[in-house]
């Protein structure tokens, strides 16, 4: 009786261990990256608030190793990604990255001092190479905003490919947004429009200094 209980416990531990280890590794990527990012933003606030390009390149340097950005770009592009050639994919990735950096870095810096990130118990992993890391974003005294990171493991390295804020997936929302435009004017026409959209952000950032 006792032996079978012991055996069962032993088996559970053996089976659960690799799963926990992987999950822990995915959580660690999110935790380390966000720690590193917030620390850097807080330390260099003075210099960064007046220099948008420096802010963007700092954020890019810290985030990119933790992202599977190629996958994010492909998913955001949707069906058009299948027919796109390498040149088009590269162009889109570049534009997409710049748009995200120009959009999200300023609010990030603004809230950096007040942001706390907590890690509720992780969700059970869906597959061995896919995981969702749950976090709660706390800004000041405001209610926690649940932020989930969809991650994939490639060559032993966990990387984020989607961010889901209060149920709103960045990939799905942008994919829907892009999709209607791609359908209307084709992939190249869409990218031209994206480029002129970014042009407006560039102009704004230039006058902001």
């Amino acid at each position: 009786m006792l032996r079978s209980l012991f055996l069962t416990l032993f088996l559970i531990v053996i089976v659960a261990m690799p799963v926990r280890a992987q999950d822990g590794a995915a959580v660690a990527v999110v935790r380390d990256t966000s720690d590193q990012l917030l620390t850097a933003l807080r330390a260099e606030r003075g210099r960064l608030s007046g220099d948008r390009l420096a802010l963007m390149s700092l954020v890019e340097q810290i985030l990119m190793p933790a992202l599977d950005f190629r996958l994010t770009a492909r998913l955001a592009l949707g069906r058009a990604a299948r027919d796109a050639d390498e040149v088009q994919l590269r162009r889109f990735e570049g534009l997409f990255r710049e748009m995200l950096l120009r959009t999200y870095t300023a609010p990030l810096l603004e809230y950096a001092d007040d942001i706390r990130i907590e890690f509720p118990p992780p969700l059970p992993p869906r597959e061995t190479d896919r995981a969702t890391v749950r976090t709660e974003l706390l800004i000041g005294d405001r209610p926690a905003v649940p932020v989930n990171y969809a991650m994939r493991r490639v060559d032993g390295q966990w990387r984020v490919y989607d961010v889901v804020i209060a149920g709103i997936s960045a990939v799905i929302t942008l994919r829907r947004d892009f999709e209607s435009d791609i359908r209307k004017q084709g992939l190249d026409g869409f990218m031209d429009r994206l480029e002129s959209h970014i042009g407006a952000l560039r102009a704004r950032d230039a006058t902001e200094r």
Partner: protein
Amino acid sequence: MNAFRKSVLALLALLTLGLNGCATDPYGAYDPDPIEPVNRIMYGVTDLADRAFLEPVADFYILVTPDPVRDGVTNFFDNLGTVNVIVNDLLQGKVEQGASDTARLAINSTIGLLGIFDVATPMGFEAHDEDLGQTLGVWGLGEGPYLFVPFSGPNNLRDVGNIPMSFITNPMYYIWDSGVTGPLSVLSIVNSRANLKTASRVRDEAALDPYVFTREAYRQNRMYKVYDGDPPTPGIDEALDEALEAELEGL
């Protein structure tokens, strides 16, 4: 009477048709936004009014009120909205949650000085987010056609009852005093808009088509709320999720 009954039946049939929005093929059959041209006009008008009046007022409000004051204002209106939450807790059969929210309302309305301070959360009575649309969702209704309600915002046929429901459950409108209720209503609107400042900025910058961006963000967020933060799929459409899965597998 007969004619009345017939028209009610017709209306019900229409509603169920519209609300059976569960079939999903993002590229084909299922269209979440069948009246898009009308919605786009409503969106345009609302956006124009927002940029001309509400947003500048909200910007000024943010400028002149310190953060703690704005948090207090937000708490005050959230507390008034708790009655709506309790009613919907009960409609969804969440009795324990309803009891907790009732305690929350009682505590914050008294010790929390009319709701300005949220003292209930640290005491273990955390806020919940329930409304009529979520209740109907829990009962099994699909989202139905997307609606952009002028001067209000994104909505759909299932959730649109939230607007009258939030009025009739708000104590503010029972203690009617034109000297107080009017200014309070204005403050409520301006404060809500101020709380959306970061979100609207992101929309302005990240979206190629802010209309689609708003719609898709709204749909996902509502799905998430109906399932109390734990939707069966990460996205809104099973077919889209399957497409994502297939693309992930194919890499």
